[in-house]
C-alpha cells in the first residue's frame, strides 16, 4: 500500500482487485487526455496569433453561414440518419467560438428554410426535435450564456414552427436578451421572399394605423419603412456570406441584405468546415474591404439621390 505522501498511481482495476486489466490501456487513456489538453492549448495559442495578425486590418462585423452539406456528410461517412445534423451543430458552435474570439459581433446561420418543409416529414420532425434539444442545451450552457455573452435570436416566420420548438426559441431569446458580446442569429422557417412579404405587410399595417384619422393624407412608404420591418432589421447587413459545399447560389437567404456582401463558397461540406476556412474567408474579405466599403457608401449616396 502506498504511504500517505504518495499518490496511488496504480491502475483502477488493480486497486479494485479486478483481474484481466491491461497496464498499457490505462496509460494510453492518460496519454490521450494529456495530448488533447496540450493540443487544445497549442490550438488556442495558434488561433490567438492568427487573430493578432488579422486584427491589423478590418475584421468583418457580421458573418453569415449557409450550413450546406450535412446530409452528404452523413452519407459520405456512412453515419446513421440525423448524425450529419448533429455534427453540423457541433460545427456551428465551433464557428461561434472562433468568431467570438476573432471579435466578430454578429453571426447568422441559415438553419432551416421554409422550403425545407417540403422534405420528408420524418426528416423535418427529426430536425425540429434536434432543434428543440439543442436550444434547451444552449440555454443551460454556461460558457455560451455567461462566459461568451451570446445573445441568441431566432429569425424567421416562427409561427410555422411546432409549438414546442417556438416556445423553446422564445425561452432562449429571453434567457440571453441581456447579453451583448456577440449576437447569434439563427434563421429558422426563413426565406428572403417571406421576409420581404412580411416587411411589406407590416409596413402597410403600421402606416395605415398611423394615418388613420389623419387629415394630411396617406404617407408614402419608402425603402427604410420596409427595412425597419424586416426580420433581419435588428442586425446590420452581413459583410461575408459563407456557403459550404461549393454551391454558388444563396437559396433565398439574405438576398435583400447582401448588396455589398462578399459571397464565399468553399467546397468542403458544412461539418468539415474549420478554423482555416474561416481565416481564408476573412483574408478574402480584407483583400476586398476597400472596394466593398466603397460600394456600401456609394449605395447610401445613390439612395439619397432617389
Amino acid at each position, binding site marked *: 500500500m502506498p504511504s500517505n505522501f504518495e499518490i496511488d498511481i496504480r491502475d483502477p482495476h488493480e486497486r479494485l482487485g479486478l483481474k484481466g486489466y491491461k497496464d498499457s490501456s490505462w496509460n494510453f487513456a492518460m496519454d490521450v487526455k494529456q495530448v488533447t489538453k496540450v493540443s487544445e492549448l497549442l490550438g488556442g495559442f495558434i488561433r490567438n496569433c492568427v487573430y493578432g495578425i488579422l486584427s491589423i486590418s478590418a475584421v468583418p462585423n457580421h458573418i453569415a453561414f449557409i450550413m450546406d452539406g450535412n446530409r452528404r456528410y452523413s452519407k459520405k461517412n456512412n453515419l446513421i440518419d440525423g448524425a450529419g445534423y448533429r455534427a453540423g451543430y457541433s460545427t456551428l458552435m465551433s464557428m461561434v467560438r472562433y468568431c467570438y474570439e476573432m471579435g466578430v459581433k454578429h453571426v447568422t446561420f441559415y438553419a432551416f428554410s421554409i422550403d425545407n418543409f417540403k422534405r420528408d416529414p420524418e426528416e423535418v420532425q427529426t430536425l425540429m426535435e434536434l432543434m428543440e434539444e439543442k436550444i434547451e442545451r444552449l440555454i443551460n450552457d454556461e460558457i455560451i450564456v455567461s462566459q461568451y455573452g451570446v445573445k441568441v435570436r431566432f429569425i424567421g416566420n416562427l409561427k410555422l414552427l411546432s409549438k414546442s420548438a417556438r416556445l423553446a426559441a422564445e425561452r432562449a431569446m429571453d434567457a440571453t436578451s441581456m447579453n451583448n458580446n456577440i449576437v447569434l442569429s439563427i434563421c429558422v422557417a426563413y426565406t428572403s421572399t417571406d421576409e420581404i412579404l412580411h416587411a411589406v405587410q407590416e409596413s402597410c399595417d403600421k402606416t395605415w394605423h398611423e394615418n388613420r384619422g389623419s387629415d394630411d393624407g396617406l404617407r408614402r*412608404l419608402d425603402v427604410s419603412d420596409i427595412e425597419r420591418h424586416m426580420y433581419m432589421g435588428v442586425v446590420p447587413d452581413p459583410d461575408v456570406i459563407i456557403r459550404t459545399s461549393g454551391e454558388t447560389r444563396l437559396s433565398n437567404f439574405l438576398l435583400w441584405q447582401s448588396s455589398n456582401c462578399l459571397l464565399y463558397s468553399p467546397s468542403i461540406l458544412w461539418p468539415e468546415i474549420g478554423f482555416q476556412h474561416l481565416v481564408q474567408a476573412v483574408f478574402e474579405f480584407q483583400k476586398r474591404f476597400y472596394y466593398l466599403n466603397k460600394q456600401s457608401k456609394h449605395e447610401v449616396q445613390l439612395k439619397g439621390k432617389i
Partner: protein
Amino acid sequence: MDLLVQPQNVFLNVSKSGNIVLLLLWHILHLVLSILYFLREIFRAFESYLITNGYVKTYDDLNLDRVKYLGIVVDSDEARKTSNVIELLDWLSAIGVKKVCLYDREGVLKKSKDVFIERFGSAELPKEDSKNAPLLSKKQMEFEFVSLIDGKEAVAKAANLLFKKYYADEDSEKPFFTETYLTEALKTLGYVEPDPDLLLIYGPARCHLGFPAWRLRYTEMVHMGPLKRKKYGLILKAIHRFTRVKQNYGA
C-alpha cells in the same frame, strides 16, 4: 513611481514592436495571397486558352437550353468602357445565348443601351411601354437593363401600390399578402422578368452589388474577375458547370 513607469514603458515598447511584427506578418501573408491569386490568374488564362482553342472537348457541346436567362453584373466603373461590354456580348452571342439581363449599380449600361440595341437586337427596360414594337426586325439577343433603383426601390413602389389598393378603404378587410400580390404589383409597375438562372459577376469581388433581391432566389452566382480580364473559355466553363448543377430547392 519609477518602479511602475519602467515596466509600463517596457510593455509599451514590447507591444509597439509586437504590433510591428504583426503588421509585417499581415503584409507577408497578404503578399503570399496576392502571389497565389496571380498564379491562379495565370492558370485560368492557360485554361481559357485550352478551352477556347478546342483542346478540352468537355465544353464542345453546351446544353444552352438550361440557361434560359443569363444575368451579367458589371462593376459600374468597368461598365463605362463600353467596348469591353460589347466584346463580352459578342462572345455571348457567339456561344448562342439569347436572353441577357445586364445589371450595373449606377445604370451606366442603361445609358449606353442604344449602342447595344443597335449592335445586337431588341431590348427592354423594366418600365418600357410593352405596346411598343421592337425597334429592329433582326433579333439576335434580347436585353434587359437593370440598375439599383429596380431593386429595393421597386419593392417600395410595389408596397405603395398595394397600400393604395387594399388599405385606402378603412372599412374593407385587409388581405394577407402572398407572393402573388407582390408579383402582380411589380408586374403592374413593369418590373417582372424571369429570374436569371445564372449570374456572371464581372468586378473585383464576388458580390451581386444590389441586383433585385426578388429575382435572385435560386440564381447561381459565379465570379468571373474584372471585366478587362474577361476570358471566353471561362464563360464556357461557367455555363458548363451550371448545366451540371442539381438543385433540390430545399427539398
